[in-house]
């Protein structure tokens, strides 16, 4: 089995740049070093993942997708459903990161195949804590295996 060491790639799907900044800040606070890419809605997320459109031609396959719920054009749930329906994408863990703490949103996300659900808290320190937990649960530091290439070769 070949393993290639490379940075952990996270695709952050978030329409608010300010929100994305806060997430990056929280990662920095927790010393999480990743290759963080951002797109602004569901359509862009899918284009990124499918390597469509000129500027996504060289998009790397993310190791984790952080997905907001409420976005223009294509919302988080819709995007999640599309990802989970594509065989080449469905194995990428998707973690929901939303302002909403409505029970229904969490339940719906998990039902569609989301790996985890985090609410973005009001307090910035709490946000840092949330991202720390998230990182511990979902981010691998250092070398990252590329199982999809291996699987294709076997």
């Amino acid at each position, binding site marked *: 089995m070949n393993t290639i060491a490379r940075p952990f790639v996270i695709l952050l799907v978030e329409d608010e740049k*300010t929100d994305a900044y806060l997430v990056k800040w929280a990662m920095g606070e927790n010393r999480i070093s990743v290759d963080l890419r951002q797109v602004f809605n569901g359509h862009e997320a899918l284009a990124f993942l499918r390597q469509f459109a000129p500027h996504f031609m060289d998009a790397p396959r993310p190791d984790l997708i952080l997905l907001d719920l409420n976005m223009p054009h294509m919302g988080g749930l819709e995007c999640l459903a599309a990802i989970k329906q594509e065989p080449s994408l469905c194995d990428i863990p998707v973690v929901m990161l939303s*302002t909403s703490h409505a029970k229904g949103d969490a339940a719906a996300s998990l039902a569609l195949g989301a790996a985890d659900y985090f609410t973005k808290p009001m307090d*910035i320190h709490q946000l840092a804590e949330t991202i720390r937990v998230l990182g511990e649960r979902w981010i691998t530091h250092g070398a990252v295996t590329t199982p999809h290439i291996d699987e294709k070769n076997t």
Partner: protein
Amino acid sequence: MTRLHLNKLLLPLLVLSAGFVATYFLQQAAYTAAHQIQQDNFAYQSREIILSIEQRLKAYEQVLRGAKGLFIASKSVERGEFRNYVTNLELASSYPGIQGVGFSLVIPPHEKTRHIEAIRKEGFPAYTLRPEGERSLYTSIIFLEPFADRNLRAFGYDMYSEAVRRAAMEQARDSGKSSISSKVRLVQETEQDVQSGFLMYIPVYRNGRPHETLADRRANIIGWVYAPFRMNDLMHGILGEKIDNVDFEIFDGKNATPEMLMYDSISGQDQSGAPLYQSSRHIEIFGHNWVVNLHSLPAFEANIDTGRISVIRLTGILMSVLLSLLVWQLATGRARALNRAQEITKELQESEFRWKFALEGAGAGVWDWNISDNTVFYSKFWKEMIGHSADEIGNGLDEFEKRIHPEDKAATFAALQGCLDGKTPLYLSEYRFRCKDGNYIWMFDRGMVISRTEDGKPLRMIGAHTDITGRKQTEAALIEIAAKAKRFADALDSIASSYVYMKDLNHQYFYANQSTLKLFKCSAEELAGSGDARFFPPETVARLKAVDDRVLERGETTMEEIDVSPDSPERRVYLEIKTPIYDGAGKIIGLCGISTDITERKKAEEIVRTAAQYSRSLIEASLDPLVTISAEGKITDANTATENVTGVDRTKLIGSDFADYFTDPGKAREGYQQAFSQGFVTDYPLAISHASGKITDVLYNASVYRDSHGNILGVFAAARDITERKQAEEALRKLSIAVEQSPASVVITDTNACIQYVNPQFTEVTGYSAAEAIGQTPRILQSGKTPKETYVELWSKLTSGQSWHGELLNKRKNGEFYWEDVHIAPVKNPAGIVTHYVAVKTDITDRKEFEEELLRSNAELEQFSYAISHDMRQPLRMISSYLQLIEMNLGGQLDGEKRDYFNFAIEGAKRIDQMLVALLEYSRVGRMGEPLEWIESRAVLDEALQFIQPALDEVQAKLSISGNWPRIFASYDEIQRLIQNLIGNAVKYRIAGRITEIAVTSEIVNNEWRLCVADNGIGIIPGQVKRLFQVFQRLHSHDAYEGTGIGLALCRKIAEHHKGRIWAESAGEGLGSKFCVVLPVRGNN
């Protein structure tokens, strides 16, 4: 002197010789004149004889035509009818010379045997066809009247078998006209007084069948009416004894050969010497020729008075001598001699009229018209015929003219003129002629011009007329008989409502009127020879035959009802009256029937009878004592219930006084009188006493009953104990009204889902009237939008005897859809068998629409809420987050005051967020939560405690849980939130420094679940309790106690969503609080 003497002698000699010459010429002239007159007379008499023969034969033909008319007017002619007809003609007196009138029937070979049997059955056992032997066609003289003497010999004779007769029969048949045969020897002849004979035939064709063409005539001939004539008898009848001066012979055919001699007026008499006058004439009668040779007899010739001519001669000579003597004697007696000559001439003229008297002897009135001076000699008899004496009528033509009936005058004078002009050899006319008494008699007048001038101008015409009134009357009578018969047949045909028919002894129809033919669906021709078997089913035929036999064999007149096909829809009932038909001899020859269709009447009678039986059954079935009472107060009928209540047998009850059975007979009679005077009594209280002494209190209802004319026959009285029934009826009535007026639709169907009842609300809702709905199934309401499974479930429930409840989307008559809440329950009879289904339905369209509207607005609200929860909180989060980032970045640069400012701003943003979240939660109660379900209350408590535990631990609160925790029907999340909030409040509003004690209790009170959370906290100021549960109402400042001001409002909303209530109890400030929630417990588990 000698010369003078000679002269004197010469003149007388001249006179004498002139006298001789004159006498000779006078005698010759007289002889020629007499001879001419006699020649005229002979010609006249000859024509007269021939005319008489022709006229009479035509009269006979009329008789036969009358008989034929009988066949035309009737469908068939019976022996009796024929006899009556011929008898009425009085042949012997009116038409002497005819041997009889008969009918010869055509018989095809295949019917020969049957025919012989039929005639034998009429009472002629020896009847057979003569001559015997096989022939291709038979005829038989079946009628011949008078049926006696010589005529009996002709009965059954087949005339067609004999060549001479057949020729005449065929001629008649093929021409459709009368014919006469050549000379025959009649079968009537015996050995004595053998005479020549001939026969006259008129063909009779099948009624109603065409006989326009030869083929038709041959096909449809049924026989000939005919008459046999014996020549001598005939001529005697025609001419009587009057002919004594003319001899004539009649020969058959066109030539007078001796073997064809039919008649000789003076047979066997030796004819000495050639007759002075003779003529030979042809007669053509009905296409047949006769030759008549006539000879004058000496008696006729004697009328030429040769003796008188001798007298004229002698007298002339004598007179010449005398004249000469007279002349000689100076012609002294000359005038006397001339007078004498005139007298002689007159005598001669008188002798001319002798023949006229002879004619008068034969019953004719003779006239002689001298056209040149327009005088008419009318004979004495001419005058006497019309009641005048000889001197009452002059000799003008006007005497004739003025007596002719005005209607006949023109024709008569036209005929007369025709003869005068020579256009017709004979003048013939029939006219009515006025008698002295003013009455008219019919005359037959004939005459001829007997002398004309050389250029043809008529000079003299003679003639005679005879009284033919008798013949005319007979003709009229014949026409009347035929017309009567036709009218009678027409009348029968016009009777549409009755069936009139006649049958012969073999039960075969020979007549039926039009309505019968229509019923039988056959024509008159097809009917003949048909029996009942052709028209009726076998059992009816047998029944009809039995009735017919009674009529035909015993002469009964029957009246029977005949039920045809009684058990089928084609059933008809006829009332048949049958009576025998007799011939002239009183023998039954058939029957006449009149039938009327009484099917409808019969049905009506049966309905009435059934109704009567039904009524009787009803009366007997009644548990109420029922009696009828006559006008005299006697019981006329009573039912079993009356027997039971009185203890008296029905036979004894009937005829007894009704009042005897009541405890108070006087009151009973009073009630009876009341019924009589008012027509009824209602609920009249009486007590019936049983034979055993037992008393039954009853209410009497009575009314009079009447016959069909409205006369009171008596009283019908019914006793009843109505209390129970009335109550039941009242209850039923109320129920009925309730159903009728119900705001819910009520539908009752039978087990086949066939609608039997709907209430007015049904009509209101669906638009279908009761009449439209009844008989249909509720499927008429189906919209097609209700899932099939719903109906499957519905029917599986109903057929298993259970009721069903559900909602159906149905369709109104106008096509609108509507929602119904439907309860359907099977209705069972006492035996437990389902007999009907009752559906009670409520139109819930409005509710459904409201619900849908609510769902829609909830969805919108949800959208709104979501927008708040995300879109509003996002910027709030940005505010608080970036304020914090700024604060952190500034770090030590901030002094304490500025740090506080930052914190106020951040806290404010956070509080708004908390309130937003709380509001969202509040608005979602009852909308977003999962549906109510059975949950374990204790499990909910335990989960709530997991959330609240950190807070409890933080303040080291003492929590006690007690009581009975039941299963409840509720929303898990909401109840959990409720418990969390109440316990959370208990922690929040604690008194600092005091150990917080919280008691959670659960119990069932009055079938309700009661949950209480009691604490030892700050308590509630009395009067503030109400404000507690309102949104954003805080009793305390935010500084003192954190909170959104929504917690308890949310609790109240949750309680209310569960149809429960919440309240707070507190002894006062600092004395702790107790919050209680009560929710109904649904069901038992």
